[in-house]
């Protein structure tokens, strides 16, 4: 079954780190990415640009509205995701717990609706 691991965290936390801590953090993500690949469970993964780079679009009363910024102005923002294919939720949770995002933010685990 496919699960989307979504990493929510406060972008200000990353900005406060020293350059060497930032490099260490990114390297941890790199190692996690490799471990997922080696285990043969990784389908796709991306880091997102900061939420300040987001633009939202919706149709309201027949008119398209385009707004700067993310959908929800919360402190924690979606920063990236891993799409994995594992046998069950237990396995997905054990990978989520290893995600560096679980330490500096929150990892939301959502099963993908199979089409």
């Amino acid at each position, binding site marked *: 079954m496919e699960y989307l691991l979504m990493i929510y965290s406060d972008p200000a936390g990353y900005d406060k780190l020293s350059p060497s801590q930032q490099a260490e953090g990114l*390297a941890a993500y*790199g*190692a996690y990415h*490799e471990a*997922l690949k080696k285990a043969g469970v990784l389908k796709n993964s991306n880091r997102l640009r900061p939420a300040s780079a987001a633009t939202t679009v919706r149709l309201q009363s027949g008119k398209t509205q385009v707004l700067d910024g993310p959908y929800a102005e919360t402190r924690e923002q979606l920063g990236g995701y891993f799409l994995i294919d594992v046998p069950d939720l237990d396995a997905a*949770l054990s990978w989520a717990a*290893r995600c560096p995002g679980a330490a500096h933010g929150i990892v939301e685990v959502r099963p993908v609706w199979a089409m």
Partner: protein
Amino acid sequence: MTSPSDAAAGAAEAAARRSYSKLIAFLAARTRDVAGAEDALSEALAVALTEWPLHGVPHTPDAWLLTVARRKLIDAVRRRRLDEAASEHLLWLAELQADDDSEPAWPDRRLGLLFACAHPGIARELHAPLMLQVVLGFDATTIASAFLVAPATMAQRLVRAKTKIRQAGIGFEVPQGDALRERLGTVLDAIYAAYAEGWSDPEGVDARRRNLADEAIWLGRLVASLLPDEGEALGLLSLMLHTHARRDARRDAAGDYVPLSEQDPARWDAPLVDDAEALLHRANRCAAAPGRYQLEAAVQSAHAMRRRTGAIDWPAIERLYDALCELTGSPVAALNRAVALAETRGAAAALAALDALAHDARLADYQPHWAARAELLARSGALDAAQQAYAQAIGLEREPAVRRYLQQRAAHWRQRAAAVSSTAR
């Protein structure tokens, strides 16, 4: 000033805490209805909270709770006709009511309850969660976090396991003779699993989880006190106390991870180490051949010797892991044996032992396997391969402090490699 209701609430909570497992064990032993016993006891506690402030706390709160809970249990059995045959139902009622005139000193059925929770008819991975809930009263959400399972799933699994105990008629009897030794192993495994989950929260971030290690030790003490001649029960308790004695030494002042061999023995909890040593000594005098927990406790004892001698007795540790490998065939024991080999015979011998394990699927996602491989590869000069193994270990680790430690080790060897190649040029 505390109000009468506060005092009553405190008394009820204290009685529940002190006697929870005893009450549940006694209530469930006859009917085998663990969920029913839990419901009845929580109803009795609710009654206590309304009645004690009005009429005062009874002289024997436990006996009071037991009487009320039993009445609730009888009511519940009377109400339930759905999934039980009528004759069985009547039998239960008769049994429950026959107990009515029993004296306040009711028999301790907790050991039986532990054996029921770790019965072979219940899925192995549920033994520890079931014990935590039934014997210690942990809620499903806390247990779910500890075992990395979704809370709703854990709640469902626990309900199913309790139904199984009731419907399959899993007994609360303590087995005798050879059967005891065989079944005791699964009870001890479950206690150790609970301990390990509590232990894997070294930063103490989750107060409830740290509690889990303490509670597992409490269970270990309970079993060791009820079965004082079982070497494995003593061995498990010794093992848990040894590791628990080091809980604070695992992090330095900055919160960084400190591996066992680099810990400052002065930071170990000395009285706890002494307790652990005394228990192991008692275990070694038991009749049966040493089992898994006694051997593992002996390994920890060899590490603990460092506080007196200043050195780790690696040859002894290697022999103990030899025995563990033979006894259990566990790949983790084989991995630890390889790590000991690195100290007694060098990195090459250790790597050869690790290569023999390389295709064991059970180690593929096991962080310590990759960390050990990385360190040994680096020490024997295979620096590129070491970096790959470090990356794998870092990617598999859950604990940020351990992840940082592994990253620092990898960086250390990268710098060494850079220094080597610059002098070569």
